[in-house]
């Protein structure tokens, strides 16, 4: 048992007892029902997979330094980029913010003691870990070479790699995210503190609500699709292989019905992080709060109507393609609303150039490029040229790495004092943000040009004239890697040697800043009563 009567008593008597020093044994962590401890467990596990995925990314960039395929065979290369994608998408990006920062903050932000179903929360982590182990077995036991998209009939019939294991791992990782989403939806609906109305919720909570809806409505479809794939591969049921009477394009419909919304699972949470950070660095209420809130929900719903933009050249009918193309243009509107509103929030804000500000700027720039190049790809004619080239690779990395990973790192810095009770050296925070921003652009901007010039993705041999840009990209990747290693180092340092964090180091608004750093096991000494809207920063003082 993690939480006992005594613990409750202790945390009520002495405020210095917090969720971290409330029990030390391994058991107190592995059987915990505290959402904050589960968040920490998730932080550790996704970091392991981020490192593993990063290792495969380095291998890809290493191989692409030269036009010849000299480092590895084509088969190995196929496996390396596939495992990079599968690990990063299913084991890092999808849980990245919701299961860590979201898990930690959603209950605190709504003023609750924990999530609605603490045991299910722990279960989601165990499901994730089992999925991770299965995935690791698939990797170590020979790998998988289908790409993260598992396209049929290659995956179901022809591939000679561990497709079933990898699909099973992705399937289970999906269940873990369904459980997280379920917990968030119920918590946000039923456990808000007195006075915490829907329109007083921090925008972080709104974006997690939208993310959870996608997790609940979309993930079952990928789960069943992967089951169909496993049945076809294992038992020869004909769903997707034309030789068995199936239809390969059906797989793409089913896959992208989840996976396009899933790309929003991989960006919406970071938009929530940004809303909180923008308000704090500008010391202003987020401009157009309601619009930002509803744009999250709009993204979640519209995101389900655009999947065909991945299939313009798949033999999908031109008419369906036109409908998907138009709706894809529409889905860019709510993303633009957010970007404009954050910028408007900064306008006349009282800005301090600290780590948070650096991350906010970096995010705005990278997400802007990522989102706008999405519109290039949504144009059916242009996409015939750009589809499956490095342009697409650059596009989605600008969003998933430039957006979500930047948001994850920014959020980890912003809430680090709350999570660990320790301060990190701000100068190093700014250095890391700069390294990430520069390294990222140097890695991925050349890929837009490469793709536009016609370099296809997923090939490791390429014509000589592409080498300069590829070397630039690999160089950028090493700077980017440094940008990730440096925060890893000083954040770890700060846990042991950093100065103690005050309850509200940034002078920010929000319930999480009203409790102690780190918070007690049940988050608040007494249930907070909310009397004002979010982000009520006082009038800006004259300097």
């Amino acid at each position, binding site marked *: 048992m993690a939480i006992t009567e005594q613990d409750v008593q202790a945390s009520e008597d002495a405020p210095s007892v917090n969720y971290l020093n409330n029990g030390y044994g391994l058991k107190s962590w592995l059987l915990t029902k505290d959402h904050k401890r589960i968040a920490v467990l998730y932080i550790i596990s996704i970091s392991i997979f981020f490192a593993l995925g990063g290792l495969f990314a380095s291998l890809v960039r290493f191989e692409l330094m030269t036009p010849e395929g000299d480092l590895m065979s084509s088969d190995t290369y196929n496996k390396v980029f596939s495992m990079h994608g599968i690990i990063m998408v299913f084991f890092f990006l999808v849980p990245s913010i919701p299961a860590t920062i979201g898990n930690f903050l959603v209950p605190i932000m709504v003023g609750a003691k924990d999530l*609605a179903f603490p045991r299910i929360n722990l279960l989601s982590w165990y499901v994730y870990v089992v999925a991770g182990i299965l995935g690791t077995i698939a990797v170590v036991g020979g790998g998988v070479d289908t790409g993260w998209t598992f396209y049929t009939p290659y995956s179901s019939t022809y591939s000679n790699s561990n497709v079933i294991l990898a699909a099973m791992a992705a399937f289970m990782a999906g269940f873990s995210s369904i459980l997280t989403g379920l917990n968030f*939806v*119920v918590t946000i*609906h*039923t456990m808000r503190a007195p006075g915490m109305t829907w329109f007083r919720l921090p925008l972080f909570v709104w974006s997690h609500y939208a993310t959870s*809806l996608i997790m*609940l*409505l*979309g993930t*079952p*479809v990928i789960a069943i699709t992967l089951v169909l794939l496993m049945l076809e591969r294992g038992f020869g049921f004909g769903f997707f292989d034309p030789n068995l009477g199936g*239809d390969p*394009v*059906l797989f793409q*419909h*089913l896959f992208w*019905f989840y996976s396009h919304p899933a790309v929003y699972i991989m960006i919406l949470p970071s938009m929530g992080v940004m809303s909180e950070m923008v308000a704090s660095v500008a010391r202003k209420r987020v401009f157009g709060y309601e619009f930002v809130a509803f744009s999250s929900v709009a993204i979640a719903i519209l995101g*389900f*109507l655009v*999947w*065909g933009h991945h*299939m313009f050249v798949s*033999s*999908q*009918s*031109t*008419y*369906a393609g036109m*409908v*998907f193309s138009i709706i894809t243009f529409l889905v860019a509107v709510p993303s633009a609303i957010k970007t404009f509103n954050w910028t408007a929030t900064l306008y006349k804000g009282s800005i301090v150039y600290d780590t948070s500000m650096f991350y906010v700027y970096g995010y705005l720039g990278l997400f802007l490029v990522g989102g706008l190049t999405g519109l290039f790809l949504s144009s059916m004619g242009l996409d015939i040229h750009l589809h499956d080239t490095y342009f697409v690779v650059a596009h989605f990395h600008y969003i998933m790495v430039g957006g979500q990973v930047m948001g994850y790192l920014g959020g980890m810095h912003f809430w680090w004092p709350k999570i660990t009770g320790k301060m990190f050296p701000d100068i190093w925070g700014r250095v890391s943000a700069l390294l990430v921003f520069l390294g990222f652009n140097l890695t991925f901007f050349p890929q837009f040009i490469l793709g536009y010039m016609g370099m296809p993705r997923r090939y490791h041999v390429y014509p000589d004239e592409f080498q300069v840009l590829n070397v630039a990209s690999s160089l950028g990747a090493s700077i980017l890697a440094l940008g990730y290693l440096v925060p890893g180092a000083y954040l770890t340092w700060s846990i042991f040697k950093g100065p103690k964090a005050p309850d509200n180091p940034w002078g920010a608004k929000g319930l999480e800043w009203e409790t102690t750093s780190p918070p007690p096991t049940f988050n608040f000494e007494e249930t907070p009563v909310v009397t004002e809207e979010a982000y009520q920063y006082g009038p800006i003082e004259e300097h």
Partner: protein
Amino acid sequence: MADDHHGPTVRIYLAVFASLMFLTALTVWVAYQELGMFNDVVALGIACTKATIVILFFMHVKYASRLTWLLAGAGILFLLILFAFAMADYVSRGWLGMPASHYLQ
């Protein structure tokens, strides 16, 4: 969350189980009848009926709050979106007389 609605009784569970078994047998029997294109229609109809019974009774949706109905309804709505947009592709593939229309013949 206190649940002030009462769930189904054991008798209802058994009745649901019996009807599921009956419908399964029916599916098998129908599969051997020659109904032309209606074989699919009947099979899917039976499957939907079974799913509805499971959702209402086994999953307690019949006894749940309106919010649960809303979420379950949303799930079904999004499933219909999946079918509708995917079918929009299949149905309109032949319209331009392009090679893709072969798949439909």
